[in-house]
């Protein structure tokens, strides 16, 4: 039970600054997901919170206590690693209880805590096995168990699902969410997968090149992206970006316009705000993705209901969207607030 605060946290490796001052306030019990492309600094940020990387400047505080210079073990955190980092020569029980043993906890209490965690994670039949005798999902659970038994103030997750296959990933995602709700432990979760971010997060942080571009509730971030990067990164298929000059009746003052594929619709050739030629349409059943090419050569994607008629390839079409559906950005890629 704790809050987590980052104040103007920076990280430099040699001469290159990789994190340019990040501020985050995580409330008690909140699940925060940091999402961003690889190399954006999200893992480094997490590792700084864990105490595995030093903080170049700024302040990290857990429950109001500055932890910048504390060893990981003294920060009251637990971490789940991307490749689980299970000790290969130890049984599941020993893996889960290793931290407690180091903390010199009485044997009975260790056994009790492990038993509770194992029950919660359905690991009871496997406690005496070695990690290599477990499936990917089970290893994942052991890694979770190791974090749970410590009863930490803060959970840290470093892309914990990226080594699982698609089906397991969905299942574990739900389990993690349920578990976190149950335990109510403040969590910081790093991923590059926007679906994980959208579904898990109470609030999400979109990171780009060492800067937290936007912090907010997933749907708010989706609906009101603060930057061009966020608009492009969150949402699949990605937002279409077009210069205002190419759009009939475009608003003045914007450098770029972003249009979500689901907001755009096809019209007869010659009408609508833009013109394009259909290159390909993907019928996914419930919906259809129509890929067009604009006169400038840029691609444009429209997402429409699966029941609507599909245009043939090579057919010229008009593209239209409702007023106010366009998202406007200035030359720096920042959102221009609607007047």
């Amino acid at each position: 039970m704790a809050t987590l605060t980052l104040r103007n946290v920076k990280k430099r490796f040699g001469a290159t600054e990789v994190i340019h001052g990040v501020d985050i306030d995580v409330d008690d019990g909140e699940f925060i997901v940091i999402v961003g492309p690889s190399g954006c600094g999200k893992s480094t940020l997490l590792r700084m919170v864990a105490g595995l990387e030093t903080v170049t400047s700024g302040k990290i505080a857990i429950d109001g206590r500055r932890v910048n210079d504390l060893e990981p073990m003294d920060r009251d955190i637990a971490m789940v690693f991307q490749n689980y980092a299970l000790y290969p020569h130890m049984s599941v029980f020993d893996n889960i209880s290793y931290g407690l043993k180091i903390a010199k906890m009485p044997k009975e209490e260790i056994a009790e805590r492990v038993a509770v965690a194992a029950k919660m994670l359905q690991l009871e039949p496997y406690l005496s096995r070695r990690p290599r005798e477990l499936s990917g999902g089970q290893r994942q659970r052991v890694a979770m168990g190791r974090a749970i038994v410590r009863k930490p103030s803060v959970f840290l997750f470093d892309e914990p699902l990226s080594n699982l296959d698609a089906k397991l990933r969905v299942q574990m995602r739900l389990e993690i969410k349920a578990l976190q709700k149950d335990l109510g432990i403040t969590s910081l979760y790093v991923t590059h997968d926007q679906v994980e971010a959208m579904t898990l997060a109470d609030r999400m942080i979109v990171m780009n090149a060492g800067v937290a571009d936007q912090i907010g509730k997933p749907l708010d971030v989706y609906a009101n992206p603060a930057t061009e990067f966020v608009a492009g990164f969150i949402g699949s298929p990605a937002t279409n970006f077009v210069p205002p000059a190419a759009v009939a009746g475009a608003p003045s003052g914007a450098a770029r316009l972003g249009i979500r594929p689901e907001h755009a619709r096809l019209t007869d050739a010659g009408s609508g705000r833009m013109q394009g030629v259909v290159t390909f349409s993907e019928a996914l059943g419930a919906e259809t993705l129509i890929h067009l090419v604009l006169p400038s050569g840029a691609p444009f994607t429209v997402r429409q209901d699966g029941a609507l008629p599909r245009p043939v390839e090579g057919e010229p079409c008009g593209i239209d969207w409702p007023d106010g559906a366009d998202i406007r950005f200035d030359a720096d890629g920042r959102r221009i607030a609607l007047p």
Partner: protein
Amino acid sequence: MVQKRGIGHWFTHLGLIVGVLIIFFPIWLAFVASTVTQPEIVRPPMPLWPGDRFVENYTSALVSGINAPVARMLVNSLVMALGIAIGKIIISLLSAFAIVYFRFPGRRLFFWLIFLTLMLPVEVRIVPTYEVVAGFGMLNSYSGLIFPLIASATATFLFRQFFLTVPDELAEAARVDGARPMRFFWDILLPMSRTNIAALFVILFIYGWNQYLWPLLITTDPSMNTIVMGIKQMFPSGDDVADWPVIMATSILAMLPPIVVVITMQNLFIRGLVDSEK
């Protein structure tokens, strides 16, 4: 595999069997010589089939030997070989751990100093090393036999290579779990290195057991002789006739421990050999 059929297949076996027999022959002959009487040997040709003096010859070698009882020399060899193998493994594990898992001033310098000692055998620096050992009063002592042969970094290098392959996340997880460095070393790194340690042990044991020049120099007292160097001392100077059955029994005894180690730990040994020299 392009399979050989029919007669070619048997020729392959034949070739290998002839090879095995030729390789075997010197040892067979030594074994035969260790089971017959002295007159049977000195009146050539000696028999090629074992005699009935096995117990007598080996007892005579083990209990009285020629200069010193061979049992005593076996003990000396065992102490030296174990000392070298265990000592080298311990200091190498520690220093490889320091070099891989810490950043400290002079780390690269240490690394290169240790690296420099790779492959420089004791043979090329015998005279000054002898003087050092003599200066410490370590002639005719186990420490004199062991320490100079530990002073090389082959094992350090191997452990360094192995530690580098241990995933970083394990050290991180251990840190998050609250393990201090030595705890991590003891609880995680050491158990994970078990196979490597065992393989290296086999190789170092044989290396230590088979040392010749160094014990020859520093053990002037027959009761400190190792068995491998002691055999040569059993030959009389001048024209006297050597006591062949006892000498050959000693030779067999001298090869037995390393051969047993190699055969029983064959897979480990091959792995260690291929790893250490790849």
